Structure formats: C-alpha cells, structure tokens
C-alpha cells in the first residue's frame, strides 16, 4: 500500500477537488467544473464518484460502496477493493457503520446521519442536456433560471404516456434555485434527498462536481394536476417482507416465476437477521451473516 499516495490521487489534485466540493456546497445544485483526472478504470464506471471519494476520505473513515443498492456487484466490489488497497481505510457493508458511502443509482433505505457523506456517481450531470444540446446555452439557462424547458419534457411524458413516465434521474429543484439531475436514482429515492447527510455528486467524464448540503430543500418538479409520485413496485420483498423499500424484480424461470427483492442488500439482510421473513424467504440464523 505504501507505493500509492493516500487514496491514489496526489495531494494537489485532492485539493483542487476539495475546492470544487466546497464551492458546490456553497451553491447547492450548481455544477462546478473541475479538472477530472484519468483513473485506472473506464469512464462510466464511476470515475467522478471515485475522485470525490478519494478527496473526501481520511484514514479514520469507514467506506461502503453500493451499486444499484447492492454491496456485492462488480462495480461496488472493485471500487471497495480499490480503496482498501490505495487508502487502507476500513470498509463495511453496513450503512450505519460507514462514514463515507459511494453509490451508483440508489440511496440507502436507512436514514443517513449528520456525520455521514453520500457520494454519487453521475453519468450526465446536466438535466437539460437531452432538450438543449449546447453547453453554452444550458449554462445560460441555469444562470438566468430559465427552466420552462424542463417542464416541456414532463409535458411530453404526460401527452405520450398519460402520466409522468420519467422514473429515474427525475429532475429536482434545490433550495428554490438550481434545477439538478439527481443522477439515475429511481424517483422513489427523490424524497430521501432532504437528508441529514452531505450529498456529493461527481461526474468524471463530464468534469462536473455538485452538492446538496444537509437539510436542503429538494423539490421534484411536477404539474399542479399531475403531482410527483415516488413510485415503486406494488409488492413486498419476498426475502424480508419489507413493504417500504425499493424492489428489484428478478425473473426466476421460463414459466413466469418472479421474485421481488430489496435492491438495498444491507437493509434486506439486516431485516432478515432481525427475524423478518418474506413470502419466498427462509429465516436467517443470528450468526449466518
């Protein structure tokens, strides 16, 4: 481990990223440009999140990494191992134990505390991008608060599908000012963004960092007659029986068999350890985990 500087990046780079993070925290929802570095992983695998995590970590931190809510998928495992090797920090799969949580596409079910930081991996930070291809123009729209176009997208959804069909990366307005892309989290997670923890967003390829400080007002955009709805599969978890968590649908066989299971693996395992059993689950012994 001694062959790497702490957390892979050199100190000057971490300083530059910390400046961007502080600026982002000072202007909630504003996309701060930063000099994104080449990381030893391809773009789209969380290079932005990794750089923000590297600049945020201290040797005393405990890191948790999740990918679509799960601790045991490729992306999560390799990023966790990356920081075990380059920073030597403690890691955990338990949300409550972690001080820094890097996430791709989910917010943990368990409420975060004031001493926790949530780092998001962001593919496309610009919420207006698919409506307005010019970066010059979108920056001008942000600075002049011209957000009518965002509602045009929602209008199109209703006109086409009869309801707002956008189900992830659902645009939000932060502190009544900047419209922000919450990264591709399901809209079920949007209400959780008003939280006690610090939320940092890193987009490596697009070279942008933005942030939502604790207890910020985060409002999902909607129409008066088509209000925002945090939707999820209308089912209980088949493993732990939870009815309040976001579910993955797993196809079990060719005969149409399916299983709904919490996308947050730590939350599900915790509930099963506590004795909750879903329709298709088996009880876990106290020491099985």
């Amino acid at each position: 481990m001694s062959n790497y500087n702490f957390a892979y990046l050199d100190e000057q780079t971490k300083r530059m990223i910390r400046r961007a993070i502080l600026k982002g925290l000072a202007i909630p929802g504003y996309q701060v440009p930063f000099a994104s570095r080449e990381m030893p992983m391809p773009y789209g695998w969380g290079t932005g999140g990794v750089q923000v995590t590297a600049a945020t970590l201290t040797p005393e931190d405990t890191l948790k990494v999740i990918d679509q809510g799960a601790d045991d998928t490729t992306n999560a495992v390799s990023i966790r191992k990356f920081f075990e090797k380059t920073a030597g920090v403690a890691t955990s799969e338990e949300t409550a134990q972690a001080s820094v949580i890097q996430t791709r596409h989910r917010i943990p079910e368990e409420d975060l505390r004031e001493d926790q930081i949530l780092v998001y991996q962001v593919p496309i930070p610009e919420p207006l991008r698919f409506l307005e291809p010019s970066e010059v123009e979108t920056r001008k729209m942000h600075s002049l608060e011209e957000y009518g176009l965002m509602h045009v997208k929602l209008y199109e959804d209703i006109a086409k599908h009869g309801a707002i069909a956008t189900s992830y990366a659902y645009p939000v307005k932060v502190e009544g000012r900047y419209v922000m892309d919450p990264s591709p989290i399901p809209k079920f997670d949007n209400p959780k963004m008003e939280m006690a923890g610090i939320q940092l967003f890193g987009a490596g390829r697009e070279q942008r960092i933005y942030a939502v400080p604790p207890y910020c007002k985060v409002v999902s955009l909607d129409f008066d007659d088509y209000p925002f709805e945090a939707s999820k599969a209308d089912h209980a978890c088949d493993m732990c029986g939870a009815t309040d968590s976001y579910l993955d649908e797993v196809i079990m066989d060719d005969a149409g068999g399916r299983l709904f299971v919490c996308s947050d693996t730590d939350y599900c395992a915790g509930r099963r350890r506590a004795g909750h059993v879903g329709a298709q689950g088996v009880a876990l012994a106290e020491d099985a985990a």
Partner: protein
Amino acid sequence: MTPLLKVENVSKFYGNRIGCEGVDFDLYPGEVMGIVGESGSGKSTLLNCLAGHLTPDTGEVRFEMRDGMMRDTVSMSEPERRMLSRTDWAFVHQHARDGLRMNVSAGGNVGERLMAVGARHYGDIREEAVDWLGRVEISESRVDDRPSQFSGGMQQRLQIARNLVTGPRLVFMDEPTGGLDVSVQARLLDLLRGLVRKMGLSAIIVTHDLAVVRLLADRLMVMKDGQVVETGLTDQVLDDPQHAYTQLLVSSVLQV
C-alpha cells in the same frame, strides 16, 4: 399616440463592412412595418438588432414596457431582454425548424412559452395549446405529433401559434412565407392578416416579396447596402417609387 418602438440611429458593422447604418423609425401600436430590399441589403441584420439577437454598435431601440415606460432594450440586462422575448415579443423565423423544437410534439411546442412564464397546470396548458392550433388551422388530432411529421406550411403555422400564445405585443417576422408554394403562402398571409388585425399586433416584417408587404404592411422601408433609401405608406412607395433602387425593385416583379 406614443410609439411602441422607437429606433434611433441603429448601426451594425461587421469589421469594415456595413451591416446596417443609421436606421431611425417609430412603430406605433397596431402598425405593421415592412422592410424590403435585396439579399445582403442589411434587412435581416437590422431585424436581429431590433429583436436582441445581435447587439447594435450604435443607437437605441426603445420599447414601451407594460408599465408604459420606454426602455432601451440594447442596454437593458440580458435576463430582462430574454424575458421580453418570451412574453411581449415574438420572432417568426424563415425556416420553421429554427423556431421550433423538432423532437417535441406540437402541443409541447406551443406550451413551451406558457411553461417558461410559469404555467404549471397540464390541463390548462394543453387546452390553450389546442385552442391555438385551432386558430392556425391545425386539427386537434395532430396535437401530439412532432413537427417533423408536418408539411412546410403547417410547420410555419405551428411556429406562429407557438409565438403568439403568450399574447405578445410586437412580432418580428423574417421572410415568414419564404420557401412555401404560392397557394400555401396565400393561406398563411390570410391567417397572419387576420391574427394581426384581430389581436391588434404590431409587427415588423422583413421580406423580399413585394406582394407580402402589399398585403400586410401599413408602412414600408426600402433598404439598399445597409441604408434606408426610402420610407412611406406601402401603397405610396409601391405605386409611386421615388428612389432609383425602389423603381428597379418594383419594376422587377414579374407580372403574370
């Protein structure tokens, strides 16, 4: 009566070349002003200066705001100017695809200006959009179709609906009938004339088509090499042209 728009000494240079130079005129409420001239005469440059798309090098463009104050739109802040162009102004481009979002439905195109000024009720926005499509003779059944599925004439009418939905007081038009065949042109002109009269709009129309200004414009300005060479009532200028270039222009029109 006070003018709606007061243009004083507007000039725009491209390096050493003249875009337009020393243009003065007043536009009164409900009046339609035509600007004609050959290609490169500076009429589009002038229109873009007036509409805030270009910043003139000299001069003032003063507009009567809703509170009755005359404000110089050249020196006002950009947010104010962009607000004006979403509310009190409208701009109809020659090519409908410059003025429309081609991948957004007709209803969304018309609704965009409403949403930009704060409309947040889907049902109301849609009702208004359908109403405006009707006024420009587009059937309600096309409200969810994209403009790319429309004919050229329909696209142009959709662009007009999209611009007029917020009830602007001043409309800028750049060759609104260019590129359309004559029967479609005639319908569009008929429609425009009706809307302008009914809504009491003021308009500035740039065109090289003298028939268009004959039909629509109350007053006419003839431009040549960036200068205004002749102004007057439309019929007067077209029937009794004084300047040599205007005489050439009028006599160049093909007689059928």
